[in-house]
């Protein structure tokens, strides 16, 4: 990471999750379905961590789209995985994130692109992203874009 003042609210969000014995399948690696569960768990923590200051730590939202790339298996020697979340697009009612799942050794095992939609449970329809949340997402997106540009040159 480069020097200078860092605003933790715009840095990629990263969390550590427990890998359960029941997550492994007959091949001795984490079953593909479980990556969606890890991704969801990380999004819950992300929402709580980033939106709580607006009283929206439980912001109602739903998944619109999930795209997964499985790059390498998570094997039995990983008792935890890390999940990183970067914001890549912010729309009116939806936002898109990139999630990266790392094994205990720090290797990338899986990447996901997920579109989340702000949601009103009483009408089961999408709503505009509340402004406080939007600001947080926009700042995180810009930070992610600058970081990517920097690493690309």
């Amino acid at each position, binding site marked *: 990471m480069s020097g200078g003042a860092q605003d*933790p609210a715009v*840095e990629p*969000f*990263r*969390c*550590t*999750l*427990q890998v*359960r*014995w*029941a997550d492994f399948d007959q091949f001795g690696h984490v079953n593909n379905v479980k990556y969606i*569960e890890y991704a*969801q*768990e990380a999004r*819950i*923590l992300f929402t709580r*961590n980033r939106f709580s200051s607006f009283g929206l730590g439980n912001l109602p939202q739903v998944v619109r789209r999930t795209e997964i790339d499985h790059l390498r298996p998570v094997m039995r020697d990983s008792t*935890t995985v*890390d999940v990183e979340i970067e914001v890549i697009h912010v729309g009116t009612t939806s936002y898109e994130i990139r999630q990266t799942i790392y094994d205990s050794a720090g290797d990338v095992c899986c990447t996901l692109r997920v579109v989340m939609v702000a949601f009103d449970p009483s009408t089961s329809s999408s709503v505009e992203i509340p402004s406080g949340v939007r600001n947080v997402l926009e700042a995180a997106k810009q930070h992610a874009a600058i970081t990517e540009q920097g690493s690309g040159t």
Partner: protein
Amino acid sequence: MTEQLVLDAGGPLGISGEPGRRVYTAAMPVRWSDQDLYHHVNHARMITLIEEARIPWLFEDGIPTATLAAGAVMTDLNVKYRGQVKHADGPIRVRMWCEKVGGALMIARHEVRGRHTPDSEPPAVDCTARIAAFDLQTQRPRRFTTAEREYLLEFRHEAES
């Protein structure tokens, strides 16, 4: 900045108590997906959490019963759900000991409490499991080794609290 795995389960973890009253306590994080429509941990997921809790007690490398990881089967499971466990109660605390240690079969006891419930209060879940050592090659039960038996016997006592 990494949000670390929080294992503060509201009480001491690992092995505690004198021989004859010895228990193993494990902390288990509750996943969002463990909840059902009623906003509490689903009964079937609770069994998965209890299964997971037995791993640091019995199956991790370096533990005398780690050899059981190569083959151990559940022959009977009794789960009493006395109270609800919510996502916010996690990480849950699972206290475990042996009620009986036979030649090839043990009776494991488990008490599950939320992070905010002290051990002096009744557990939310009370679970008794009969687990047999099993040889996957021959597909038959096998006897405990001396080392396995000795370790299990350290945790053997009948009633608890």
